[in-house]
């Protein structure tokens, strides 16, 4: 999409089209001859995997919409009908439900990849922000989709999440009533969630288009974080990365199929197979696994508005990350201290996810009562959540801004090609010809 185009129309028809709508040229320059750093490792394959995830969700979703009835009296039954009576309905619905989880697994790996290799830094800030917008849209879509089967978790999840807006002073109640279209989560709510759940994936597809556009202007980052200096640093996207991405997609689909065919409800919750009952809340209400870290942050704060602000703040901070990290070095490979803090950050995210699935007052170490600090036992998930939340924000707001100024990075290579060509241990002759093997 940028730079010099190498496309040469070969037939008369191609020449005719090229002067009217150069769409073949666009495809050629974007995915065939697009110059790509030759050292991309397997963490870079998740972009392609995510594109596949989005396509699976859209195709299966459109099919499900042909059979689903968005009405509180029929929604649950229509989903069960899809599972039992519609031809291959079980397959399509399990693909869609597990596909959502796969989508989030891939997007989290994709985001951690960006964090580790500094892919958010100049000149890729807009690329990163567009990614954050996609992530926000994904969360909204997933939340509304989970409401549609109208099970107990669907219903009470919708109640809890829409009530978050009630924490806002003055306008809170008006906003929740407006979101519900009534005085509680009801048929009006289900209808609009269905409409928006159908719309948002296409908006995601649109922003993905912008994301790829913003990627192709500066070009890919790479594991060294060093800019592409010459043609020797790149290989054409096809066949090198079409094949590499394709291989990774196949591996990913194997994981997907394992869940789909052997344990399709492993990532769901049994309570959602009980029809929604507005009069009884499930005793242990949890969101889907991909929201657990944010749920833990929400519960870590004893104040309603404070919890809501911190939860949304955890996502908002990602948007300004390009300006928080002061380090000139992109890749954590050459930031020995930064790497350590990053690994603890990943751990903190996993701990938050684990805490989000537990009861706040339960003991982290079973059977051990320590002492009560402020409002809860120190050995409780609520305190573990607080520590992890503190680190989560500390990483972005304290560690990255200060560390960039104080840390001494290790030596970066002159260019992407240098470490390969000047390797002392006598690389095999094929090393440069097969650069994708270099991590």
């Amino acid at each position, binding site marked *: 999409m940028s730079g010099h185009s190498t496309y040469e129309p070969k037939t008369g028809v191609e020449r005719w089209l090229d002067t009217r709508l150069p769409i073949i040229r666009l495809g050629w320059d974007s995915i065939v001859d697009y110059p790509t750093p030759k050292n991309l490792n397997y963490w870079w394959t998740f972009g392609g995997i995510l594109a596949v995830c989005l396509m699976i969700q859209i195709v299966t979703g459109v099919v499900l919409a042909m059979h689903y009835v968005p009405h509180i009296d029929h929604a649950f039954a229509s989903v069960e009908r899809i599972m039992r009576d519609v031809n291959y309905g079980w397959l399509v619905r399990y693909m869609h439900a597990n596909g959502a989880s796969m989508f989030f697994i891939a997007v989290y790996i994709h985001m951690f990849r960006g964090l580790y290799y500094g892919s958010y830094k100049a000149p890729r800030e807009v690329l990163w922000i567009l990614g954050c917008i996609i992530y926000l849209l994904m969360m909204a879509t997933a939340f509304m989709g989970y409401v549609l089967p109208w099970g107990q978790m669907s219903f009470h999840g919708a109640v809890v999440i829409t009530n978050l807006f009630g924490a806002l002073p003055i306008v809170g109640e008006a906003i929740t*009533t407006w979101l*519900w*279209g*009534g005085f509680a989560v009801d048929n*009006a709510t289900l209808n609009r969630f269905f409409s928006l759940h159908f719309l948002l994936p296409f908006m995601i597809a649109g922003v993905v288009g912008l994301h790829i556009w913003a990627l192709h202007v500066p070009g890919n980052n790479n594991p060294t974080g060093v800019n592409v200096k010459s043609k020797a640093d790149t290989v054409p996207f096809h066949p090198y990365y079409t094949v590499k991405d394709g291989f990774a997609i196949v591996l990913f689909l194997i994981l997907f199929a394992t869940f789909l065919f052997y344990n399709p409800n492993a990532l769901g919750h049994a309570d959602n197979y009980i029809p929604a009952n507005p009069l009884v809340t499930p005793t242990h209400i949890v969101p889907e696994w991909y929201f657990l870290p944010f749920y833990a942050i929400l519960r870590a704060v004893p104040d*309603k508005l404070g*919890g809501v602000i911190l939860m949304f703040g955890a996502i908002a901070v990602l948007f300004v990350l390009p300006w928080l990290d002061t380090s000139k070095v992109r890749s954590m490979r050459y930031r020995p201290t930064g790497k350590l803090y990053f690994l603890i950050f990943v751990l903190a995210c996993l701990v938050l996810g684990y805490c989000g699935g537990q009861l706040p007052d339960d003991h982290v170490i079973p059977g051990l009562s320590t002492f009560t600090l402020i409002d809860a036992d120190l050995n409780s998930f609520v305190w573990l959540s607080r520590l992890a939340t503190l680190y989560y924000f500390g990483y972005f707001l304290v560690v990255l801004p200060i560390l960039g100024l104080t840390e001494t990075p290790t030596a970066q290579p002159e260019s992407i090609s240098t470490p390969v060509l000047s390797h002392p241990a006598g690389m095999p002759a094929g090393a440069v010809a097969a650069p994708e093997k270099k991590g």
Partner: protein
Amino acid sequence: MADTVVGENPDPHAAGEDPNRRDFIHIAAGAAAVGAVGALAWPFIDQMNPSADTLALASVEFDLSKVALGQQVTIKWRGKPLFIRKRTEAEIAAAIADDGANLPDPQTDAERHKPGKAEWMILIGACTHLGCVPTFAGGDYGGWFCPCHGSHYDTSGRIRRGPAPLNLPVPDYEFLSDTTVKVG
């Protein structure tokens, strides 16, 4: 185009033209467009607010003789659970005794029931934290306990501990007779 004077600049934006009239047209057209978009946006925003038929479903009547002493019946009102609890003497006494306690949302028990009807506690059964339905007689204060995020309510439905900021709300209701109540 026969009258075109050769050499004269036909560009109206060129320097020397009086800008005021054209600026006015730009601003007026822009303002009209913004106003039109704003006026059109409102119907599309307001359509999401409760519709007329939703607003019409506002009141229910309930036969209180169905509730045994010390028990609670939950009915649905405006899509939300409504608690109708017949409190025991001990529960009423406990609520009154705590009137002076350190309450996050201070209210006396008498302010939360109709005069002379202390046994009837009628509340909207949605936790003021995030809207879950608190369980009957749970928690450390014998009133209600919200399973979602651990809010404890006393026998007057007042928040005592946990993340909820406010007491369980008391809906508008009136006693039509000794055994019938109309909510809403």
